[in-house]
């Protein structure tokens, strides 16, 4: 009676069976070629991506690894009490105050001894001083202030050589060009040779690169403040953007009624990702600094602004991941009497976690390298002192990198690359936790 039944006998004659008897060519050769091509494209894509990474890494590390060492000049210093504490007061406060030039005298004295100069040879002394960092006297002063028991002793102190000397010793300033074009003069080269022969001039691990704050002297400049600032900012970003992003996505994807409004919001959030980050800087300036009166240059504000820039990434990734969880899982949860909330948090979210974490990894990576918005809120700045709280002025690794990249001194070039290495190491450390977590959540079903 039914159509199907009446057609059945007819279809028996034609249809697949006939073809089946003489097996048709299913184009395997062509399809395999396509398959191989497809696979090769995939492999090529991964390889290309990794090659790019390698090339970038190679160029950064190649330029930057030398900055992890630094030229020092060891000199015997006579911590002459009559110079340091002429009035006998050896307290740190007294060391810090008073005539600042007395420390220069200490250095000059020990330099004269090290170079075996005639005490009247002023030119020789100045040439020698040219090799030493201009920050040597403050360094000596804070050294004594920290440990007043040094006063009256004789001690060998490792002074920093200036950035130019450092670059020369490492070979980035070449000696084989005419003196007029050279950044370092013949007389200085002679002194360097002499110091090297005496063993006073040597390379040592550059701890200051990690611990010092900003300085105009490359030999004393470090990413310490920037590191702490970035750390604070990333903490703020992580603490705010991950929960906010995940919570927002859960609402939009699982709870919000599906209508034009939510469409609008979805489009909107996708669109937020395309807003240039400097605009977020403007927003942050208006909202957090001008309106909420949070301090300028503070890592808290930086973190807040970066949170806003990261949110869209996390939300988009999370929503995509939530969408990818099959509905049968939700039904299973609801079917045993779990509330929607429970189903989402117990079953759906864990399955979406890899996507959430990917969003977090990429979002944080982006946030960590972002400079433009920080410019607007005063975080591309020269800051010497460590921030103790996220409300103190700080700078960030990428802004530090940009600032160093614009410095003319040769010694900053390698430090720029070194700072990039530090940033990448920071990134890796930050991501590895997320990557481990992601591995734990990944399962196929």
């Amino acid at each position, binding site marked *: 009676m039914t159509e199907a039944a009446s057609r059945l006998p007819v279809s028996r004659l034609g249809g697949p069976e006939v073809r089946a008897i003489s097996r048709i060519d299913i184009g395997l050769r062509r399809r395999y070629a396509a398959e191989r091509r497809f696979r090769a494209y995939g492999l090529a894509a991964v390889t290309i991506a990794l090659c790019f990474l390698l090339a970038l890494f190679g160029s950064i590390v190649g330029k930057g690894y030398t900055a992890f060492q630094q030229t020092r000049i060891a000199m015997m210093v006579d911590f002459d009490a009559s110079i340091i504490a002429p009035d006998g007061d050896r307290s740190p406060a007294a060391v*810090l*105050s008073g005539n*600042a030039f007395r420390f220069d005298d200490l250095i000059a004295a020990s330099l004269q001894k090290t170079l075996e100069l005639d005490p009247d040879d002023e030119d020789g002394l100045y040439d020698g001083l040219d090799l030493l960092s*201009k*920050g040597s006297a*403050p360094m000596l002063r804070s050294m004594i202030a920290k440990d007043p028991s040094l006063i009256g002793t004789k001690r060998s102190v490792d002074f920093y050589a200036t950035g130019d000397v450092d670059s020369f010793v490492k070979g980035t*300033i*070449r000696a084989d*060009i005419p003196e007029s*074009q*050279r*950044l370092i003069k013949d007389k200085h080269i002679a002194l360097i040779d002499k110091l090297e022969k005496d063993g006073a001039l040597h390379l040592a691990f550059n701890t200051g690169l990690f611990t010092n704050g*900003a*300085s*105009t*002297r490359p030999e004393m400049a470090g990413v310490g403040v920037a590191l702490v600032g970035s750390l604070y900012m990333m903490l703020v970003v992580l603490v705010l953007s991950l929960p906010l992003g995940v919570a927002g996505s859960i609402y939009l994807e699982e709870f919000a009624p599906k209508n034009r409004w939510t469409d609008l919001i979805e489009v909107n959030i996708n669109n937020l990702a395309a807003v240039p980050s400097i605009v977020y800087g403007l927003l942050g300036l208006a909202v957090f*600094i*001008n309106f909420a*009166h949070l*301090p*300028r*240059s503070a890592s808290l504000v930086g973190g807040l602004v970066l949170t806003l820039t990261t949110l869209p990434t996390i939300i988009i990734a999370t929503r995509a991941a939530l969408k990818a969880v099959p509905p049968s899982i939700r039904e299973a949860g609801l079917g045993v009497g779990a509330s929607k909330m429970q189903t989402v948090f117990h079953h759906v979210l864990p399955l979406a976690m890899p996507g959430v974490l990917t969003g977090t990894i990429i979002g944080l990576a982006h946030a960590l390298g972002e400079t433009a918005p920080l*410019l*607007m809120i*005063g975080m*591309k*700045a*020269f*800051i*010497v*002192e460590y921030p103790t709280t996220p409300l103190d*002025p700080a700078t960030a690794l990428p802004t530090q990198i940009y*600032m160093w*990249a*614009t*410095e*003319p*001194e*040769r010694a900053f070039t390698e430090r720029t690359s070194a700072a990039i290495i530090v940033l990448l190491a920071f990134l890796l450390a930050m991501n590895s936790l997320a990557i481990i977590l992601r591995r734990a959540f990944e399962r196929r079903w």
Partner: protein
Amino acid sequence: AEQIHIAGSSTVLPYATIVAEAFAEANPNFKAPIVEGGGTGAGLKEFCKGVGDDTIDIADASRPIKAEELDACKAAGVTEVQEIRIGYDGIVFASDIKGPDFAYEPADWFNAIGAQVLKDGQLVDNPNAKWSDVKAGFPDWDIAAYIPGEKHGTREVFELNVLLAGCKATKAYDAFIASGLAKADAEKACAKVRKDGKAVDIDGEYNETLARIDSNKTGIGVFGLAFYENNKDKLKVATMSGISPSVETIAKGEYPVSRPLFFYVKKAHLGVVPGLKDYVEFFLADQMIGPRSPSVAKGLVPAPKSEREQVLADFQAGKTL
């Protein structure tokens, strides 16, 4: 505000940081000042936002403050602004170290990158493709000039002291006037740069220009004196009107391409922000911007002593704009 907060021109930034660092070392009881870059415009904008805790105290500038900006300042309550002139910035032309020596006249630059130049007595769209077209004796290089971007203060100096001067020297200026342009418009036309890719605006920093010359060995770049000094093993500087740029020639006013540098202080903050007054005075000291100072070592062209003394006196007298 517990500490001095400075923002503004990235040209002034290096000197401001040198002084800030030295100031902090000399005065351990004050917190170290914070120095931001960001550009003159952005710095002045922050500066003119108002007075009070969460505004900056000093704006660095590579050009004098504009009247509109001062008005905006006043409207926001920043009524008393003190101007400090700290010295000069020299602008040099340099090419790859391996290339030939260049001796420019402003006219050469005008002929090389002006939008319209005089050719056989006629104003035409710049036809010169190679430096050798500009002047016999120049190498047979494609013109590739890396000049400061339009938003840079340096650009103004370049236009005024090089292009306009060259324009006048080649009589193109007269031709513009003759074609019926008003004086101001003629000056504009002189400063117009060709847009066919031979003149490349650099909005970034001098390192970018250097990198561009690295990748295009026949390019000519515009640099700050300080930058050149630090890279003279890679760059060869050109003379302008026969004068080789150096701190001395610029300070003496012989080398034509330079501009003054400033910073602006909020007078209202002087009493409130600890160390602000001391900082300004410290900045103006010989040890900071005098001829043997670290700022000069970094490339600042010092102002004559009398000028510096005058600036300090004006500041101490509380002179405002």
